[in-house]
């Protein structure tokens, strides 16, 4: 097992532990982002992390970098403002699915359209965990949450389709597939243009336990069994994870 701990230089270790519940997957995403930084040896001076609101929104404060904790849903426009002002900065957004796809969804659409050269890592845990477990943009159909006691009547947003013909980068991975997740983030950071990594992560306390999972390990094992890696696809099936480098926009 690789015991390389040099990724820790990107973390404010003295602030740990994080405020996240035992069994939460967010810490795995946080660590994997740092490992991706480490692999690319991103300079600490010149790298900025931006997050929005929610459980995962708190992650920005744990990076040993300049970081911004924006208003709910506004991580992407703040990140774009930083990038367009000072192009030399590496700008990374780390936030949740409710933040990026729900309240901030419009900004995502237009960041894709502008193809702003920033990287977004979306902690997609299928719920609004911080507020107790309400339905979120990635909650599957029929799932019961606090606000959908009879099951989610709607279908989840399949983010990859927002990226069709955009010329941007899209990848999906999970916190079980650590090496794959890291590869997705590394490739995203290397990508010149807008890149988005949907990191499937688990919320046991306010979501999984209501679905019958006994602990977060069971949720992890579900990722292991359910998801198959397919890095060559032009489109991912619901049970596939992988990288899509979308075609550039067909200009009319």
């Amino acid at each position, binding site marked *: 097992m690789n015991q390389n701990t040099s990724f820790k230089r990107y973390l*404010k270790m003295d*602030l740990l532990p994080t405020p996240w519940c035992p069994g939460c997957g967010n810490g795995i995403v946080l660590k994997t982002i740092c490992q991706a930084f480490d692999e690319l040896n991103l300079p*600490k*001076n*010149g*790298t*900025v992390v*931006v997050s929005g609101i929610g459980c995962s929104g*708190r992650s*920005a*404060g744990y*990076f*040993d*970098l*300049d*970081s*911004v*904790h*924006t*208003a709910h849903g*506004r991580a992407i*426009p*703040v*990140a*774009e*403002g*930083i*990038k*367009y*002002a*000072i192009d*030399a*900065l590496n700008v990374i957004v780390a936030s949740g699915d409710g933040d990026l796809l729900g309240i901030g969804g*419009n*900004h995502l*659409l*237009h960041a894709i359209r502008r193809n702003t050269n920033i990287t977004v890592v979306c902690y997609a845990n299928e719920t609004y965990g911080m507020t107790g477990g309400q339905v979120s943009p990635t909650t599957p159909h029929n799932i019961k949450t606090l606000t959908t006691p009879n099951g989610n009547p709607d279908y989840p947003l399949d983010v990859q389709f927002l990226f069709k013909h955009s010329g941007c980068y899209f990848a999906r991975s999970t916190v079980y597939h650590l090496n794959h997740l890291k590869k997705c983030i590394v490739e995203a950071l290397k990508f010149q243009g807008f890149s988005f990594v949907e990191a499937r992560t688990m919320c046991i306390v306010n979501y999984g336990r209501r679905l019958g999972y006994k602990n977060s390990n069971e949720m992890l094992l579900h990722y292991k069994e359910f998801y198959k890696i397919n890095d060559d696809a032009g489109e991912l099936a619901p049970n596939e994870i992988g990288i899509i480098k979308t075609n550039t926009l067909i200009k009319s």
Partner: protein
Amino acid sequence: MPKQLLQGNQAIALAAEVAGLKFFAGYPITPASEIIHELVNKKHIKTLQMEDEIASINAVMGASLAGVKAMTATSGPGFSLMQESIGHAHMMEVPIVIVNVQRVGPSTGMPTLPAQGDVIQCIHGSHGDYFPIVFYPNSVAELYQYTIAAFNAAEESLSPVILLSDGYISHLYETITPHRDFEIKHRTSPPLGASNRHFTGLSHEGSIPKTSDIDNYRRLISRFQEKQQLTAQRYNYYEYLECGKETDILLISYGALSRVAYYFKNDFSLYRPIRMFPVVEEIKIIAPKYKRIIMMEMNTGQYVREIERLLRREIEFIPILGGRIDLQEIKQKLREEK
């Protein structure tokens, strides 16, 4: 310095450039759009048309944190959308300039007509307590002058500063001499990417979020309040015209409406706040000389409450609604007051 015939909004754009503007993000809206039209042609200013005003102010905050002077411009509906982020910018101490060219509201209202309905929204539009510095000029030359002051006050206070205008003065053409010999304040805090600071809208102590430390929160808010008062003292702008004749009436107005008030300078003494907030305290010295104070605003009585609260006395109020500034109508109303 040659004279120039400029529209109010053009003067704002030109002054912003002189003040060192490097980044502008905005969304089209009447009657503020000419500001971005003007700025897109400036080489050293990055301009972005965003998807909405929320994105605009957030991009401006990001750019400012990245170390460049940044501004957005809008009108009432967009200003309403920006409110959450204005409070956020106060909490994170981000220096930005927000121009609000007011039009008739509420809602879509009468977009092409001027109003002064956003005065209280400037200080209470966002949730929680914050203490913004707000300027409201009344001519093209003043829009130029106070745009520069707004940038300087933003840098000094590390907070968003609001420049109020209205559809009337922003669309007015006047000849001005755009001086460039103003003192320009530069950024004192280091740009993003230089350290390991954390900027957050949570209550905080330095870079550390403190979500349940009540004493720390109280210290934070009183520091903000003191900081804003201290900065404001250096921008103590108002206009007081004592009547040549004996009079016991003081007429207060501001913005577009105050231009009409000049017509009555031989009948009443005139007072005009230019720094709207924090309220200029000099009125406390001026007011006791007059038995009666009459105030006119293009709203149903927003700033009059602020003045009344400060003076602890009653003020006769004349609302001028719907964007029509008609001298005969105002004369008539003043006669009724008399």
